[in-house]
């Protein structure tokens, strides 16, 4: 199998370039991450992040044949050759396939992704009905791999001012939580020309999410909530 991989070493390279690699068939590689680990045996300077190798940690997000995804859950047989691997778009490249996600995490922190509830903590837990709990399905599963935000044109143009789909999905996750008491404050913080409203429902985020979540739909729900409070 033929691979073309984006290479950049800040110490030696003035500019990034694509390097060709070849893996003979029958090495037993099933997922793209397996292949990457085999390629790393050929050239141990190749750098990429990976950890759980089963789509839970979100470390090995990259641009695979033009589309963001997780190498560990992308089956090799679905990929056209040469398999072209590039770093996540729009983020500063630290080295090879490793990008600097500081901006992405800053935007995540911006939505205060934790439960805000001033009531005294109950002895066991804050109860929810099964229905209330069900509203969090499709929201809490996000692994913060950044596939969605780095596929979003609005995030490419304004990564410092638009929060991006991943952060906004988490904003909705806490707005939708029956136990959270900071709804008004959260909505106030999102009422802004950039933070939320740079979203033009392009839906690249939903298209690309390796966990099958729907950030675009979540942003729609936030807009509806903002709308309801002025009507």
């Amino acid at each position, binding site marked *: 199998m033929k691979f073309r991989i984006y290479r950049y070493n800040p110490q030696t390279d003035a500019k990034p370039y694509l390097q060709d690699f070849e893996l003979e068939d029958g090495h037993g590689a099933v997922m793209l991450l397996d292949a990457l680990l085999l390629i790393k045996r050929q050239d141990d300077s190749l750098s990429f992040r990976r950890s759980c190798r089963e789509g839970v940690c979100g470390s090995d997000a990259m641009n695979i044949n033009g589309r963001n995804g997780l190498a560990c859950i992308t089956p090799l047989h679905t990929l056209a050759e040469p398999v072209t691997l590039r770093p996540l778009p729009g*983020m500063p490249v630290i080295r090879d396939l490793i990008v600097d996600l500081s901006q992405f995490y800053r935007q995540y922190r911006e939505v205060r992704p934790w439960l805000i509830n001033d009531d005294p903590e109950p002895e066991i837990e804050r109860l929810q009905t099964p229905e209330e709990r069900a509203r969090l399905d499709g929201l809490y599963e996000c692994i913060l791999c950044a596939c969605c935000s780095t596929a979003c044109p609005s995030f490419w143009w304004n990564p410092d001012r638009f929060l991006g789909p991943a952060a906004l999905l988490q904003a909705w996750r806490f707005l939708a939580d029956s136990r959270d008491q900071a709804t008004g404050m959260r909505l106030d913080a999102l009422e802004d020309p950039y933070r939320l409203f740079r979203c033009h*429902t*392009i839906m690249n985020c939903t298209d690309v999410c390796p966990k099958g979540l729907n950030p675009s739909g979540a942003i729609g729900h936030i807009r509806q909530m903002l709308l309801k409070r002025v009507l």
Partner: protein
Amino acid sequence: MESENKRPIYLDLLKIRLPIGGVVSIIHRASGVLLVALLPVSVYLLQRTLESQAAFVRVLAAVHETFARSAMLVVLWFFCQHLFAGIRHLLMDMDIGTSRRAGRAGAWLVFAATAAVVLYAAARIL
């Protein structure tokens, strides 16, 4: 910390695959800008038709020429693309067609509806 500023950013728009919804979105934007650019033309034409009998006849005659009709079809294409993509937006605002599958289907429908209207108009006026 100097190296941080020199870090390259990968953003080759020709190599990043744009999903069909993204294609509809960028055409929605481009057609919107073009329609704004064409606004003065439409106001000018309206003004001419109201000016005098002679000007009215001249505008109508011009509109019957093949070149003008082809140009009108192009403008109709911009308009329908923008209109149908806009309707898709409004539906999605009402929670209709927001899933990945429905979003893609809606994007294809925008192209299909636009093509249908433009082809129908072409058959009628060319």
